[in-house]
């Protein structure tokens, strides 16, 4: 029996007349990079939001590490080891880069009802901050306010924040978008390295990256999970060719 870290069962979600998720099933194996692909508006972000808890499903279940988390709050899911990045970059704009990362470090290390000691001198922060900065290549920008970063750098920062908590499952919504060719390669390498320690659900439009990185791919079209398979299987699948890769 395979070890599934995440199971999605019969997920349904409508926004008014738009059925964004129609009875979606898929399983994610521990240690895999599992890609969600599909055309614009297919419902990929909606699925991620239901995994992270930012949106509650109308029906169906999300099972994470054999526990039903479908209806619990986002911060509780995060505390269980689920981290995410957002499609629209979401960092703490008013804080510096190092404060952003320090915040994600302390959020994962015990409580924060500590009122006196400077947070940057905190032991957890001192232990992990240099690595966290290095991992996303932002050491030189440490003292800069996040709002002055370029779009690509914000993305890197966001991925860095998602990683600091040593999550078990990482949900990434188009991390490559807005990255130049160099950034995409860097991120690909990073994800490849990470695979050893965690599982990633990756929503991405960059097909080269997806087919290179992913162990499994699920294709979504109009809110339906049409097929799940290995990159080779997906490439061969007739529906993929018509529905997504733009061939008739």
């Amino acid at each position, binding site marked *: 029996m395979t070890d599934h870290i995440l199971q999605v069962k019969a997920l349904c979600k409508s926004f008014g007349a738009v059925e964004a998720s129609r009875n979606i099933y898929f399983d994610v194996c521990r240690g895999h990079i599992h890609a969600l692909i599909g055309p614009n508006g297919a419902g990929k972000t909606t699925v991620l939001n239901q995994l992270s808890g930012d949106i509650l499903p109308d029906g169906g279940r999300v099972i994470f590490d054999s526990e039903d988390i479908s209806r619990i709050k986002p911060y509780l899911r995060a505390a269980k080891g689920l981290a995410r990045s957002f499609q629209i970059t979401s960092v703490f704009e008013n804080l510096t880069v190092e404060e952003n990362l320090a915040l994600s470090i302390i959020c994962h290390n015990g409580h924060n009802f500590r009122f006196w000691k400077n947070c940057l001198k905190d032991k957890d922060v001192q232990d992990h901050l240099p690595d966290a900065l290095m991992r996303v290549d932002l050491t030189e920008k440490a003292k800069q306010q996040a709002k002055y970063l370029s779009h690509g750098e914000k993305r890197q920062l966001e991925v860095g924040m*998602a990683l600091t908590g040593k999550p078990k499952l990482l949900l990434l919504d188009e991390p490559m978008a807005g990255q130049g060719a160099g950034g995409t390669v860097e991120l690909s390498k990073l994800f490849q390295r990470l695979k050893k320690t965690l599982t990633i659900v990756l929503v991405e439009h960059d097909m080269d990256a997806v087919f290179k990185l992913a162990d499994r791919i699920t294709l979504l079209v109009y809110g339906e999970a049409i097929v799940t398979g290995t990159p080779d299987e997906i490439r061969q699948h007739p529906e993929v060719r018509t529905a997504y890769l733009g061939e008739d």
Partner: protein
Amino acid sequence: MHYFTRKSIVIAAGGVFFAILPLLAASFGKEYLVSLFSRILIYSIAAVSLDLLLGFAGLISLGHAAFVGVGAYTVGIFFFHGFEAQPLFGFIPGSENGLIVFPLAMLISALFALIIGALSLRTSGMHFIMITLAFAQMTYYFSVGLEKYGGDDGLSLYSRNSFPGLDLSRDYHFYYLCLILLFLFLIFIYRLVNSRFGLVIRGASSNSRRIQALGVNPYHYKLACFVIAGAGAGLAGALLANQTEYVSPGLMHWTVSGELMVMVLLGGLGTIFGPVLGAATFLLLEEFLTMYTEHWMLYMGPILVLVVIFAKRGVFGLLAGLERRHD
């Protein structure tokens, strides 16, 4: 090097000024300034505590005066029961000992803030502003209804509280008590804002969705912040009751909350030390303008508008240079 930034020089200069003000006042024969500046120090404590909410936690509270009032009433009520030798609720003895009633004033204000905050923080944005205002008005009318303690007319204290080693009836002693308490409060808030707790608070106000994605429920942190700010306002209230030897519902009126907010904006939102300058500017202008006109707010208004438009970080930002909020 690091210690001689423009900002630290402004702060140090301000500290020296306040420390020697009584000497200056005495040498120029203007002793009344000591009492005016005591008032400035007291309002500074209240404004700094409000800045914690407005400038760091992103919580626009329009009811902060309620906690000032609760602190003042605590001092007043305990004084009354001590004076009349008639225990509160039949079993709590009154007191005029500052070492007892000051912490009590902070504690009871904190309790009020806990209750009001627990309910208000379930809302956000405009609703939060309105609900804090509503609670403050409720507290106001509650104090009006306290017939036993003078109702509408308020309650007079016949002397200031006693502190070991101090004689608060002497304005110089009282001034330095205010100064020391403000100093300690500023250090505390400065440390707080840069602590782990402070970082979470600033993060939660910057991006609530993001902080939840990091596994933190911001509610409890915001509530703790609200309670701390309430306690600070309570301390200011206790001092205010001592200065005027009088407490009345007027302390809690929403216009007082508005004035505190103006002090924060005038001094510099989210600058910790700025609200001290804000309180000083506001109260000095008030003092000065009321010499000439009853409608002094007519002149205060445009000044405020100019500051808010041209100096994002208020008077403090102007003096200290346009530094970033967090260094």
